[in-house]
């Protein structure tokens, strides 16, 4: 596959559009009570996972927390499979058993979708351990929020990754808030990235509203890891436009702050860059956006028409049969 720089930026722009339109639909369907449980939207943060995916190989391991719809879509899980999962249907990426917070797609190297804050960070270290154990040229991308860095699991995983020189990038999606708690109120530190020093892990700050910066800086990190396995830490500064979850009015932040970030909207930004460079016309953009909207809408129809997981299979997911041959 082509090196990151070559990956078609227009394609990545349409991916960001798909993510946004998909989540707008999801939000609408949640309000219509077609979707249950908790639902956390990624709108505003699209450049982070898209930049990371553009910088990585499709078979690099990817794992994240519960704000995970975009990570699956970015990895190639279809909008149909994602929406069906939200609807709890058998055609969902987790067969309707995981729900919004637990998206999985083995085929596309999407390893979840994990809802206990920071509990997946040790899992990521274990995946990186496995690729090193097998001498694979594989890098693990571990996404988590700013709220995760004060959990013991985060601390233990970073120390272990540093100790064993594991090929992993810890990607902290710093959107300034953990639910209603700002980073200043959760973390005894000026800059999150400094925490990596406590494990002798190199850290980088990245503007998460800028697709090209995310892609290029992560590409550099990932390539250096491929050459010589080691952990790296990236604090990617971004913002979620919506509340923490569908039930959160987000009254803890100012309208000004939100507007400020909207000015740097990652989709508008990449579109402008591409247009300026003559790589994209307005017509082309509108077409991409129209396609994204159609795909998102179609996914709702697909989810609605999909079957529920069969009741009689209720007991089939607790244990697998058989043993190692």
């Amino acid at each position, binding site marked *: 596959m082509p090196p990151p720089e070559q990956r078609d930026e227009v394609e990545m722009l349409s991916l960001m559009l798909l993510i946004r339109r998909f989540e707008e639909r999801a939000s609408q369907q949640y309000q219509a009570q077609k979707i249950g449980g908790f639902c956390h939207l990624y709108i505003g943060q699209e450049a982070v996972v898209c930049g990371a995916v553009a910088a990585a190989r499709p078979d690099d391991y990817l794992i994240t927390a519960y704000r995970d719809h975009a990570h699956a879509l970015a990895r190639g899980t279809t909008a149909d499979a994602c929406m069906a999962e939200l609807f709890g249907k058998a055609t969902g990426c987790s067969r309707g058993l995981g729900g919004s917070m637990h998206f999985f797609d083995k085929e596309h190297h999407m390893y979840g979708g994990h809802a206990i804050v920071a509990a997946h960070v040790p899992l990521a270290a274990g995946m990186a351990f496995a690729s090193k154990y097998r001498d694979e040229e594989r890098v693990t991308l571990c996404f988590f929020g700013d709220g995760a860095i*004060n959990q013991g699991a985060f601390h233990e995983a970073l120390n272990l990754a540093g100790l064993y020189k594991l090929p992993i990038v810890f990607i902290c999606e710093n959107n300034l808030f953990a639910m209603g708690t700002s980073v200043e109120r959760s973390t005894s530190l000026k800059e999150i990235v400094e925490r990596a020093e406590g494990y002798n892990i190199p850290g980088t700050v990245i503007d998460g509203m800028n697709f090209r910066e995310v892609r290029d800086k992560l590409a550099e990190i990932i390539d250096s890891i491929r050459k010589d396995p080691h952990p790296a830490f990236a604090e990617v500064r971004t913002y979620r436009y919506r509340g923490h979850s569908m039930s959160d009015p987000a009254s803890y932040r100012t309208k000004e702050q939100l507007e400020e970030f909207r000015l740097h909207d990652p989709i508008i930004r990449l579109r402008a860059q591409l247009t300026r460079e003559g790589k994209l016309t307005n017509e082309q953009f509108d077409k991409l956006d129209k396609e994204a909207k159609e795909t998102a809408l179609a996914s709702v129809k697909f989810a609605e028409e999909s079957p529920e997981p069969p009741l009689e299979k209720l007991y089939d997911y607790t244990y697998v049969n058989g043993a190692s041959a």
Partner: protein
Amino acid sequence: MREITYRQALNEALAEELARDPNVFLMGEEVAEYNGAYKVSQGLLERFGPRRIIDTPISENGFAGMGVGAAMVGLRPIIEFMTFSFSFVAFDQVVNNAPNMLTMSGGQFNIPITFRGPNGPAHQLGATHSHATECLYANVPGLKICTPATPRDAKGLLKTAIRDNNPVLVLESELLYSSKGMVEPEDFELLIPLGEAELKREGSDVTIICYAQTVPLALAVAETLESDEEISAEVLDLRSIKPLDLEAILKSVSKTHRVVIVEQDRPFCGVGAEVCYRIQREIFDALDAPIMRVAQEDVPMPYNERLEQAVLPNAEKLIAAVRKVCYT
């Protein structure tokens, strides 16, 4: 008496105990500025200020341990777990430091702490967020555990828990937060002792033992049984899992000779297993039928609503169990 919600009842209990004792404080995620993820602590920051209503980072093990340490030196912490599913990252603090300190110190350090928050399956939250922890914590000596089902019990038990000189877990139910019930006026000092079950309905043919989310279920089923099958069911709400009100249990079973236990936790080594053991050990000859239990199916909780409902105890399962013990 007034009608208030389970959520308001808890909020009143917190406010009253905070007002009563300057050593009481509330600590947890989003309890202060956000007024609680489920709004149980609504208005407390405004009234008692940031010294006593304290927001924390997502560090359950850390702040649960802080609570135990503060209790060692005379404070009376109330630690909120946003849900008890998250108490698992603090498990060591809850099962080692809180309940063992009194013994390990030869009686020098008791730990007057309250751990509270919603427990048990809510609605489509999936496997990681649906844990019913009562049987796990009930196994640990040194802990007390209550599981209020009504606004009145919620207020009375939480107030008692906060005043108790031992670690107490108040396991609330997210699905009950908005339910309503009659509670004494605010000026009335409502304290409900730990370890006292309550007969929520009188009956003669069978005893249905329940707690927390399964109490409304049991009461509804009892009505159906009365009207549809002429079975008179007695409904006993344990209210406290530990200490367990064995006396009340035996009294009812000695009368009905038939028992069904309906619980919200997992079946294997669940609360009902212990209750069953105690009953047959004490009054084996009084039993006219085997004791039946209705608990969750023994599978991780699926997200899909229909599957989730199939995992949870429900009227159909409870009625079937009652029929079984009544041989109808």
